[in-house]
């Protein structure tokens, strides 16, 4: 379980997070939603130790992340940020191999090789495993980076807008992979996502943020309600229910 305890963060004078507390359940997909500037990415950044909080603590597996060694924490928790531009001659396989760094510090063992092959196969990258990263399309590149995270084999995976700049087909592809990761491998996935319908369709829990605070946190079906979404985004939502799934229409505002 990821436990967030009264987290605060200021950038200059601006309070980006105000005493945020949250417990993110294991083995589920949790989406962080909210308007721009609500503090979602900052929260994710602090959980993943990319940013340091001014106050508060992150507890993972009953231990403060500050008490972990970098290398050990990297075996439990990984993060993938949105923009990944690399213009070096790096093949997909090289990139995925980096995922094993926390375990072998760059000297790959037979077990590492196995995990790398597995991750490449899991994301359907076998055919382009020897291609260079900078020659791939956006969807392929995103899959390659996800494969690195899969090879890292952490219990907790944090994703900052994993669907950014992807078309619908590739977005669905990525979300399905995340769902499989969660169901087959028991990973805990936390992601920042802007498309409320993707959040509704694929996540188990939703944390809604506004003005640096988590104002609603519950199972997805309890969050996808017109009055709650209105509370979060200040616009009107029409909820359409089909076969137990809820789709939001917010285009008539």
């Amino acid at each position: 379980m990821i436990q967030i305890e009264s987290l605060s963060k200021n950038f200059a004078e601006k309070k980006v997070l105000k005493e945020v507390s949250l417990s993110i359940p294991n083995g589920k997909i949790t989406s962080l939603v909210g308007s721009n500037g609500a503090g979602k990415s900052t929260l994710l950044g602090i959980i993943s130790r990319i940013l340091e909080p001014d106050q508060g603590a992150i507890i993972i597996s009953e231990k403060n992340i500050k008490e972990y060694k970098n290398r050990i924490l990297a075996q439990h928790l990984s993060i993938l940020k949105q923009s990944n531009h690399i213009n070096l001659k790096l093949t997909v396989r090289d990139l995925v191999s980096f995922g094993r760094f926390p375990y072998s510090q760059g000297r790959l063992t037979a077990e590492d090789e196995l995990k790398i092959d597995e991750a490449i196969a899991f994301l359907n990258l076998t055919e382009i495993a020897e291609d260079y990263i900078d020659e791939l399309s956006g969807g392929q590149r995103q899959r390659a980076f996800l494969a690195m995270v899969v090879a890292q084999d952490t219990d907790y995976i944090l994703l900052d807008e994993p669907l950014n700049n992807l078309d619908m087909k590739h977005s669905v592809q990525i979300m399905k992979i995340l769902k499989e990761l969660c169901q087959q491998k028991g990973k805990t996935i936390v992601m920042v996502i802007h498309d409320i319908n993707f959040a509704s369709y694929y996540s188990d829990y939703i944390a809604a943020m506004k003005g640096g605070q988590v104002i609603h946190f519950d199972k997805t079906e309890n969050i996808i309600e017109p009055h709650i979404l209105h509370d979060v985004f200040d616009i009107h939502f029409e909820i359409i229910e089909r076969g137990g799934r809820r789709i939001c229409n917010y285009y008539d505002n």
Partner: protein
Amino acid sequence: MSIKNKLILLSLLCLGLLAFFLLFDLPTNWTYAFEKRSIKIAAMIMVACCVAYSSVVFQTLTANRILTPSIMGFESVYVLIQTVIVFLYGDKTFTAVNDKENFFLSILMMLGFALLLFRFLFRKEKSNLYLLLLIGLVLGTLFRTLSSFLQLIIDPNEFLMLQGSMFASFNSINLELFWYALAIMLLCFVLGFRGFRNLDLVILGRENAISLGLDYFKTVRLYLILISVLVAVSTALVGPITFFGILVTNLTYELFKTYKHAILIPACCLVSCLALFCGQLVVEHVFNFNSTISVIINFVGGLYFMVLLLKVKKV
């Protein structure tokens, strides 16, 4: 050709040129010339390795291929110090400040400058490398302008004295200083050697590197300091060679299409040695010492820099 073969070929070429320098046209009474030449070659190898190492690492840290550590203003600090010394002591310069004092003073000032920059601009949370570079660039320009101003008002004879130290030259290396420089350089290489694999992670960017368990801040800080020391040492020993870094790193990337620093750095050292040997060869046997190696390298490096810019524009 495999990477290993390329490395072997480069090493052989280097050894060949080295032997040529050492043995070509050796006078009958050879001991004196042999000793002189050995020092010169050793200094060339050392400077080549300093530049190669610092440039490759610098380009990795800043995620680009066109900047070299000289952009941070080290060389302008060096030129300013030399100018100020001559300005203060005039024709008594060489009696007032001997080579050794000058060497260590230059290193200290360059390092002091670098550490001040890091102290104020490179902190854990706001580790904005680009701001650091920008300020370095601006201060570098300031120092250069100050130097030009001082150079303008000193006596022309004294300016000639100064000019000697503003261009790199391997023809008058002080042996004692060479040993100091070598010791410092080896120390830096050993300190940095263990982290080559960490550097491989740095190319993935800050967030990915942290996610993979790298202490990004510590790694970058360590290498920035090592780079500063190396650049300071090589500049203090032979003088500034601005375009050399760009030339050799990009040649290395072209030759060795890899991201592994354990290969890139030694390969770049070899390429640099080769380039310096060739440059020196031209200086000695084409221009008969009527030119300095800086001029040759800046000419070739400058041309290559333009080619690079045009290439980047096309992409």
